[in-house]
């Protein structure tokens, strides 16, 4: 008995070499019909990596007879069997006699119909009689041929397949011939340089297997940062490069006051609908705005009253919205719908600061954080997303200056040719939407919203009239989705994200691509 080899492919590989010794070419399925595909391929790969053989893979469709077809090959087609039985019985057969003669109800039924159609038999006085003396059993002949050669004319194969008499299957075999280094024995080849080889010096005499330069290297077991946070990092860097301080947006729960009223969003505004905003049921009611620390000496009551007045009756040169403003609505708690609520709180704090000249100092604030909308979830909407927000407060700001700022800011992301469209937003005037031409999508794509905060909002905080404030915002998800051609936001944010996507996602270099 031959010893069992630890490496079956080794034996096969040797067998292949042996088989090739006496021939120029062989077909694996013929020479080694019982060796499984995987084993044969592994052995051939091993030999071909050493240039001992060359091989090519051949795919072929083979026709395999079904059980019914095997029966036909053996006994003849149903119609032939019916004919033979009828022909044999002198004077014809009744239908029940026929069934007895054939001994198979199904064969009798199917064969009878076909034999009629072929005009081999006819019915005469309730008896079946033969019309011809001999017939040619074409089906049987075809199946016989297929049984031997596993193939036939394509039309015939298709026809028989339709009759469920046979099936086809893909068969892969290898056409193998000698390689430039063909030999009957496999010389042991080292795959790697090891410490032992260095110690023993055996590396000097060893044969090294050629490295496969066409394959990828070994998989790295690496960690990964989330693509959205990588994008956030890029934005954050740009903000830092342009002198912005990050705002404390770690406050998801807001009051109607900071989220809406302070921003001069009227209390009947559709954004405040249950359809759009998540309200909080527990805890139920907020406190009135007030000092957040002992050294906070701002007059919050005055501010609260200013906001009420500017909504209700107008103030600071504005006619206001002229409706009864309700404190109760202002003290409802919400999940913030934008980070502008935090900008409002920051600007209110700014109003209490004094620069070296005794005036409120200029400021630049930014944040990139989560906001919430009570949206129906679909491919482009989730009820959570990230807002990128920037605020610039300074004296003498102009609308053109905001455009110039955007041109610098977005240039750092490789976006040029910005277009600015007048727009409407309750808390900015002027308001403008930013568009950029997207080369991939071949159209103008909206990239953000911006404007100068309304005097009704700023002056109520006590900010001086000539201090103007730019505000702008965009979502973090949208540019990321455009960049990575992601169609569904749920593939980017939330628990349905494919971890492979996170792990294989390239670094974000907005200035490069």
């Amino acid at each position, binding site marked *: 008995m031959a010893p069992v080899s630890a490496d079956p492919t080794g034996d096969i590989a040797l067998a292949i070499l042996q088989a090739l010794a006496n021939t120029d070419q062989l077909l694996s399925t013929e020479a080694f019909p019982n060796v499984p595909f995987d084993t044969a391929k592994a052995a051939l790969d091993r030999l071909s990596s050493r240039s001992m053989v060359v091989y090519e893979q051949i795919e072929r469709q083979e026709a395999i007879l079904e059980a019914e077809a095997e029966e036909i090959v053996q006994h003849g087609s149903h119609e032939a069997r019916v004919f033979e039985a009828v022909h044999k019985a002198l004077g014809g057969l009744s239908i029940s006699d026929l069934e007895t003669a054939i001994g198979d109800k199904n064969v009798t039924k199917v064969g009878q119909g076909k034999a009629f159609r072929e005009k081999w038999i006819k019915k005469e006085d309730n008896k079946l009689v033969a019309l011809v003396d001999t017939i040619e059993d074409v089906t049987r002949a075809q199946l016989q041929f297929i049984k031997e050669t596993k193939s036939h004319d394509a039309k015939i194969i298709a026809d028989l397949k339709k009759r469920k008499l046979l099936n086809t299957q893909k068969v892969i075999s290898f056409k193998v011939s000698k390689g430039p280094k063909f030999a009957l024995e496999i010389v042991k080849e080292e795959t790697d340089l090891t410490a032992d080889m260095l110690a023993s010096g055996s590396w000097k005499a060893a044969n090294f297997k050629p490295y496969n330069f066409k394959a990828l290297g070994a998989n790295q*077991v690496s*960690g*990964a*940062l*989330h693509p959205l*946070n990588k994008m956030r990092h890029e934005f*954050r860097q740009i903000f*830092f*490069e342009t*002198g*912005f*301080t990050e705002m*404390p*947006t*770690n*406050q*998801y*729960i807001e009051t109607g006051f900071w989220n809406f009223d302070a921003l001069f969003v009227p209390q*009947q505004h559709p954004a405040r609908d*249950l359809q759009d905003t*998540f*309200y*909080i049921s527990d*805890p139920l009611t*907020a*406190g*009135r705005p007030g000092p957040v620390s002992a050294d906070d000496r701002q007059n919050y009551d005055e501010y609260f009253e200013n906001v009420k007045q500017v909504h209700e009756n107008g103030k600071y040169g504005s006619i206001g919205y002229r*409706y009864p403003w309700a404190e109760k609505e202002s003290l409802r*708690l919400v*999940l913030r719908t934008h980070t502008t609520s935090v900008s409002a709180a920051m600007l209110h704090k700014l109003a209490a600061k004094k620069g070296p000249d005794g005036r409120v100092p200029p*400021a630049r604030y930014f*944040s990139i954080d*989560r906001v919430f909308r*009570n949206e129906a979830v679909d491919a482009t909407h989730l*009820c*959570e997303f990230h807002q990128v927000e920037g605020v610039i407060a*300074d*004296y003498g*700001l*102009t*609308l*053109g*200056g*905001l*455009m*110039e700022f955007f*041109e610098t800011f977005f240039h750092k992301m490789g976006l040029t040719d910005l*277009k*600015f469209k*007048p727009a*409407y937003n*309750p808390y900015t005037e*002027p*308001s403008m939407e930013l568009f950029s031409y997207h080369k991939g999508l071949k159209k103008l794509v909206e990239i953000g919203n911006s404007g100068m905060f*309304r005097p*009704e909002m700023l002056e109520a905080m006590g900010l001086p009239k000539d201090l103007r404030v730019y505000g702008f915002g965009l979502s973090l998800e949208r540019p990321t989705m455009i960049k990575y051609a992601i169609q569904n936001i749920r593939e980017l*944010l939330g*628990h349905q994200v494919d*971890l*492979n996507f996170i792990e294989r996602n390239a670094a974000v270099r907005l200035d490069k691509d």
Partner: protein
Amino acid sequence: MPTISVDKYKLFEALGRKFTKQEFEDLCFEFGIELDEDTEEEERPIVDGVQEPPQLKIEIPANRYDMLCFEGIALNLNIFMGRTTPPNFRVVEPKDGILQTITVSPECSKVRPYVSGAILRNIKFTKDRYESFIALQDKLHQNLARQRTLVSIGTHDLDTIKGPFTYEALPPRDFKFVPLNQTQELTGETLMTFYENDRHLGRYLHIIKDAPVYPLILDANRVICSLPPIINGDHSKITLNTTNVFIEITATDITKLDIVTDMMVTMFSEYCAEPFTVEPVKIISDHNNQTRVTPHLRPRVTHAEVDYLNSCTGLNESRESLCKLLSKMAYVARPSDKDPNLLEVAIPPTRADVLHQADIMEDVAVCYGFNRLPRSSPNRGATVAAPLPINKLSDIVRIEAAMAGWSEVMPLTLCSHDENFAWLNRKDDGNTVVRLANPKTLEYQVVRTSLLPGLIKTIRENKGHSLPIKIFEAADVVFKDEKLERRARNERHFAAAWCGKSSGFEVVHGLLDRLLLMLRTNFIADGKDAAVKPDGYWIEELNEDTFFHGHAAAVYLRLGGKEQRIGEFGILHPSVLEKFDLRFPVSTLEINLEVFL
């Protein structure tokens, strides 16, 4: 933003020329509206054998109520392009000087206190004009009127009814009338049942349904003209042949009542025999001091500061030139005689969106062309960039975790109550979690107090991923805090989860050690029992149902002598795995990062 559909070629006709798609898009862009869709190239519906003509779908800013119909869009664009001057809307009393009146009963204050009226005389409707008239009412109802809660409009054929009119409020059982396009008489009560499942009207019933009295507009013969805000009477319905239109508008908000009245009459007075004239109606409402004549249509005259207009836009235009620019947005402006720095600006009744000179300033910029504005540099006050300390800290931890071979995930902040509590074998003590009042699905009931649900769900959704799965998140959870104005606070947590064929308990333990090493925090093996008490961290066996017993630990930190528990790690209890539909062991770690600030 509302989207208005207009007949493409009728609009081009009204604008005096044809536009290519690009040309029209550019015009819209410049003006600040947006061409959403041009249906010319699309398959359009065929109604009564006639294919719908090509439509332009135009998005209108939410505050431009004067552009919610064909007439308004055409008028404003024509003025913008300088093809026409703003119309001079006039109130014209009838020749005999006797105004129609609507007398308001004090009872109305209980349900819908305000009313206004106006009459369009000798108007000529065509099919298009009529449809636009109806569509404008619908758009106003949807937008400014907040689904008819604030304002609702009724329009009537004045020749079928007879003034003086009254606005009354009666108990629902005490009146009956045939509603528009119906044949049977209904009382207020039966009407509520009749329209309960009506696709169109059903959603407005709640506005008055439970009120003790329902508002009604009646004529001199006690004919019920309408039941605001639900439906008009069939008796006075307008048709293509109507020539005198009586408009009554009721409201709960007087400001919006006036705006809606102005919009209805300014948009369609164009079609009166004497264009842009309106016959006013006297409202008698002494009980709430609202006796007045509506509409007045007088422009609101205000002042705008020249230096403000120029400085905000970065322009240096003369007063005359600013006035000329403003005329493109339907203002009539002229330099003030009294102050060289002022313009006297007459704001037409159509421009209800103008609240402050900031709005006028924006229009100067639009008329000049946003994209042509000089890119003058803003003052560059020296500001110094700075990260938020907690973000800087969590970035350090995130990067260390990734370098240790863990992948970052970003699950949602909102989750179900069960995911946050019951499925983790945790109890809600009622003082911890913030609950949402109006979520659309069960997935969003609470704001998470732990990062674990998101991590575990991420593992669940990645069953096809090779094992082990090693993921982390550094993000905020939210706790109730009654001491604060917002009654809640965020807390930055770090959490990680391992899922593999073995538990990975010592792996998450190792990650904790690694992160704390990076945060310069020493491990104290003897824990709190050590004789000396240096700063550092230790762990103690933990018996909590979230974890597999005997395989969980609480993490304690002593910093500046202060000791506190900052988190825990362990093998998730098999019952937790079962709830979340996980088939492999999972170990988790969660710590509070704020303590390291």
